[in-house]
């Protein structure tokens, strides 16, 4: 985000008059509300905010935000957003994308927007399915997913969005769940991060991939299945009865029991959002043997792309005086008079 004056708004100020056209019960509704709830909290200005999306169910999002919005083409939102931000670094740019949009057709742009570290928020709505095109398996679908294009089950291995983001050089990686009340906190942390902030949001497609995340998203089992990360706090779950520790022999994370709340004795790690090695291990954890790590996994800012571009533009321009006539007259010239060349 930018150091701009905070503005007083309410949730209503961020709603458009457009009819929301997602399927009834879609997780996108919850995400939309979470964003509309977050914007007043961060003191954003609707006129200074731009939502840029690609193609897919999630990418309809900009139409429902009373801000500037650009619903672009499949996979290209990061590239369009890069142009927007370079043209006007003062704008608060949010990229809305899905698993197919960001990791399949637009995988290249996702990689580069993260690598360059454009100051923006990237919300990837992961529902592990192509919803808008009626249910084909996606790059995050698990092996064996039955879909119209894989009637006998998919055979390819899924991509892990957060591992992809970290591998691409992301300096902020977080996870959230569509219906979880913590989502605005995750979004606020993403917004507070200067640079490309990557947020994977597990989103329930109730029509084509209903409850695919139920194993860890269900509220009643959440205590045992969700590992909520907080900077400086021990990595505990199951109401403090279990924690995450380092298995030094295997150089891998392991689940340990915590007796009488003495997590230090159990060797439970304190979460350090600036530790890139731990972040790599956390995003690689296999759900089942481990709980699902959620919240801010990694947050360690470094200089942003648009700042560097603007700084170089200004530094170079500072030493030169623009003079169009001089520019077109550059190089070795000669003059022709009425009598011929004057040499």
């Amino acid at each position: 985000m930018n150091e701009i004056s905070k503005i007083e708004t309410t949730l209503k100020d961020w709603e458009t008059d457009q009819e929301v056209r997602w399927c009834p019960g879609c997780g996108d509704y919850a995400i939309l509300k979470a964003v509309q709830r977050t914007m007043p909290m961060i003191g954003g200005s609707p006129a200074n905010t731009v939502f840029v999306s690609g193609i897919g169910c999630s990418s309809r999002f900009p139409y429902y935000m009373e801000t500037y919005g650009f619903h672009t083409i499949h996979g290209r939102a990061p590239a369009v957003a890069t142009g927007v931000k370079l043209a006007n670094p003062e704008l608060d740019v949010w990229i809305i994308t899905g698993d197919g949009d960001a990791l399949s057709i637009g995988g290249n742009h996702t990689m580069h927007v993260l690598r360059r570290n454009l100051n923006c928020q990237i919300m990837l709505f992961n529902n592990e399915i192509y919803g808008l095109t009626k249910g084909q398996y996606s790059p995050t679908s698990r092996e064996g997913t039955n879909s119209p294009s894989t009637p006998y089950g998919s055979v390819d291995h899924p991509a892990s969005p957060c591992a992809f983001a970290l591998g691409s050089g992301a300096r902020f990686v977080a996870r959230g769940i569509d219906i979880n009340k913590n989502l605005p906190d995750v979004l606020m942390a993403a917004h507070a991060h200067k640079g490309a902030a990557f947020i994977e949001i597990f989103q329930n497609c109730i029509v084509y991939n209903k409850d695919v995340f139920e194993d860890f998203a269900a509220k009643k089992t959440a205590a045992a299945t969700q590992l909520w990360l907080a900077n400086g706090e021990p990595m505990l779950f199951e109401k403090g009865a279990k924690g995450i520790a380092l298995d030094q022999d295997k150089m891998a994370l392991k689940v340990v029991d915590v007796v009488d709340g003495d997590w230090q004795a159990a060797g439970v790690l304190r979460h350090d959002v600036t530790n890139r090695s731990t972040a790599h291990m956390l995003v690689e954890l296999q759900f089942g043997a481990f709980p699902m790590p959620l919240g801010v996994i990694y947050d360690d800012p470094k200089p942003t792309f648009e700042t560097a571009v603007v700084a170089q533009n200004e530094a170079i321009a500072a030493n030169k005086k623009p003079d169009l006539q001089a520019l077109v007259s550059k190089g070795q010239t000669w003059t022709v008079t009425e009598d011929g060349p004057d040499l």
Partner: protein
Amino acid sequence: MASAAQEAGNEEEALDSVVVRFAGDSGDGMQLTGGQFTLSTALAGNDLATFPDFPAEIRAPQGTLFGVSAFQINFGSRAIHTAGDQPDVLVAMNPAALKVNVDSLKAGGLIIADSGEFGKRNLDKAKYENNPLEDDSLAKWQLLAFDISALTLEAVKPFGLGNKEALRCKNMWTLGLALWMFDRDRQPIVDWLTSKFAKKPEIAQANIAALNAGHAYGETAELSGPVKQAALPAAPANPGLYRTVNGAEALSLGLVAGSQMANLPMFFGGYPITPASAILHHLSRLKEYGVTTFQAEDEIAAIASAIGASYAGTLGVTSSSGPGIALKGEAMGLAIMTELPLVIVNSQRGGPSTGLPTKTEQSDLYQAVYGRNGDAPMPVISARSPSDAFECAIEAVRIATQYMTPVMLLTDGYIANAAEPWLVPDMSDYTEFPVEHMTQAQAGGFMPYGRDEKLARPWVKPGTPELMHRIGGIEKGLDTGHIDYGSDNHQQMTDIRRDKVLGVANSIGDQEVALGQAGGKLALIGWGSTYGPIHQAVNRCREKGMDVSHIHLRYIWPMPKNLGELLKSYDHVIVPEMNMGQLKTLLRDQYLVDAKPLNKVSGQPFTIAEIETAIAEALS
């Protein structure tokens, strides 16, 4: 410079124009030699045109036929329109260069060959059984062979270079000889070498010594017959300040000038591709003119980022060549749908697919006019020469910003690389077209897709209070810009997009006849870089009394309003194009005229003679 030779009086031969072709190995520095010879020729006041012709490989294996790199220049004391059909002089730095180029040399023309390179190994590589310098296979030309390699080594000896480095000075030795032949000043080259090798003065000194040695060789050695110092008086030209310019640079300068006239910063998104990269290189050095350049991750990101920048209120520009333009197709549709200004430059090359990356062709006209999904009209304009690229770039910016539309600007590999003298424009002669972004809603409420008299929608920068709105690639509702799949709405919006682009014709004036007159037996209508050969061929035929005129299109889409009537005023119409008949199709479709194609896709420009033959046949 020229005056010294003029005083020498009858010793020189009076010439009208001369075509010289420098040919050698890719690593011999022929493009450099040609470029410097061009500069000295321009400074002598001659008109000129050049044709760099080089292989796609960066360092093709030495001595091979496919590794030959050539640079042709046509210069003279009259107006020069092409790089010349047939060279008068061929400089061949090795057997392969001789073999590839000798057949295009005019009968009686002069071959200057480096005999030092005609050993068995190089002869084998060039597939010569016998040394052509020693048998009579070159009898129809004048041959001058001497050991340039040895002479160069001798000349640079005092500077203690290694053998390899010393031989690199060969091209300067050759240039020195060429400068002597045409009475050119060495000083600009000396200055250039001194500054180029400022950090390696011994290399600069060695090159200058080679240059001087070549020059002295021409002056003092007992060269018989063929090499005579030839002075070409300066060509008549309009008074003013001149410089040389190639198309890529002129186009870049035009984009900068256009953005200044529109009072907008420019954002250029590009991805490296031959021959378009030169524009990215030029613009990346012009930051003080409000230019931001972005080397994107691919062609799609290049155009998408430019669209994003236009959305944010700056002038978005992207550039590529055919294959990259194909990748940008979907995003062009987005720019059309969202009605944002955008300039797309296509430096055409031989296709399809990877095709002939370093050779020239005009075969992307269909792609420019038709190459998108849906009814997706877009203005298309084309530059006819390096200096015309400057004017066309300004024009592309004007149309894009005034009509809120993407505009395709066509140039080609020939224009991009070729150089010509340029009468430096007086920037105060241009009419500015400053853009005003909308900051307040129209009377009656904000309509993101409301229209002005040109049917252009308002351009609102994000960040503007109270005018928040959403745009995208889904069909827009009339005026409101909301998503609207309605059937009547789609018809209406499609009509508006068509009419808006057709309306550009109201701002471009009538099509003029470049040479000749409206009405008559025959018109040749061309576009792009075929201007030179068509113009010269029509000129020659008219001098012979033939009734033929030359029309040259800048506006491919929409076309000037009088064009149909103009074409129908001739008995016959021929369309010379470096493709298989694309403008021909467009003209037949638009005007039902019996336009006849004249096509060439050999990777080489038309020769004047080819077009003269077609004219003669059509009129016989």
